[in-house]
């Protein structure tokens, strides 16, 4: 599996930021009152719990991101002709960046595909009947995607559609589906 040259630039910092912001855990309201316990508070004071949970979340996200990256490389090989005049470092970097942000929204399923446009097409399936699609297009000689389209469906109907530059559309997407508490399968 060729993934050695996959640009890791965006993976850890984004996840770390999320873990830092949320404390790496979430509360449902039904849990035992552990958060008030002396043990918990002591661990928090020492930053042990926070670091351990952050590491756990980070590993979970990295594992998911790595699986996507491996699948992405396989698909990229099949579409090399369509991407022959495109800077592949840019394709990898922007795809990794978008994928990481998408993972923070905690989709139930995620698919990252390439098309012959050439474009990268991300599918996100959420458990509440919501699906989101992101497609960003590349052109020869351009370092960033030239267009980024977002369409969100709710119960099979279009609920949101946006088209702009790469980062602007990502931002619009994250306003619609913000980063969510992440449940780690046991």
């Amino acid at each position, binding site marked *: 599996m060729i993934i050695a040259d996959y640009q890791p630039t965006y993976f850890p910092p984004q996840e770390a930021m999320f873990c830092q912001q949320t404390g790496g855990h979430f509360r449902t309201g039904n849990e035992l009152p552990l958060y008030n316990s002396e043990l918990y508070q002591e661990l928090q004071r020492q930053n042990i719990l926070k670091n351990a949970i952050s590491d756990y979340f980070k590993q979970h996200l990295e594992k998911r991101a790595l699986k996507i990256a491996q699948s992405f490389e396989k698909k990229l090989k099949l579409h090399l002709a369509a991407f022959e005049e495109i800077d592949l470092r840019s394709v990898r970097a922007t795809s990794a960046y978008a994928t990481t942000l998408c993972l923070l929204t905690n989709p139930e399923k995620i698919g990252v*595909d390439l098309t012959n446009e050439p474009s990268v097409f991300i599918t996100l399936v959420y458990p509440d009947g919501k699906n989101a699609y992101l497609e960003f297009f590349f052109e020869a000689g351009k370092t960033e995607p030239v*267009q980024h389209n977002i369409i969100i469906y709710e119960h099979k109907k279009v609920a949101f559609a946006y088209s702009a530059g790469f980062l602007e559309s990502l931002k619009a997407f994250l306003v619609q589906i913000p980063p969510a508490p992440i449940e780690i399968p046991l």
Partner: protein
Amino acid sequence: MQYPQHLLPQSHYRLIGWAAWLEDYYLVRHTPDTDMIDPDTEMLKVDYIVPENRTSQVRDFSTSLLGTFGREDCFWQIVGDRKGYFLFELWTPGEQPDEPVWQQDFQRDESRGMFFLRIGDIVDQKVPYTIGGKENFTAVCKVKHTPNRANFWHFSVRWFNQDGDIYPDQRGSWIDRMLKTAIRTIIREHAKFEAPETQPVLQDYYIQIHEV
């Protein structure tokens, strides 16, 4: 082998205009093989939505109306020098086209797969794009009868706006790309893999009525 007669347009046929009965009918589209489900999302593979070649199929996404056209008809493949005549040039009412000749003009490919779209699920779906937070562009999905000389049941999935049928000015234009994303997503959302129950289209819907 004779070409299936129920697929050929006849001079006494007429175009099928939009009507409410179409909503419960299904469109079928063939895929290169039966391995069409993406394991990551359990949806139709993205590569199978728009064909592997680089031609734009956004304006005219080819399908067939399931009913008189049966699932087995997806296996017929038009080939050879007259492919343009049979597939790409549309049939015009009153015309009696040539019949495709076995091996010369058509063959059978049973390795193909297929997926289905319920017309009522996709027709009139609006994709109300906001462009850069400023402009708006709304595309509405329509289904149109576009018979070719080898398949009277050929239907196209098309996009309309307030001015009518949308013709992207060029491949790779901003609108062209918005419509491409729209067609990929609407098909991923609504593609079905289980063959639906079907019934032949009533002749009244497509045979010309001559006034006495």
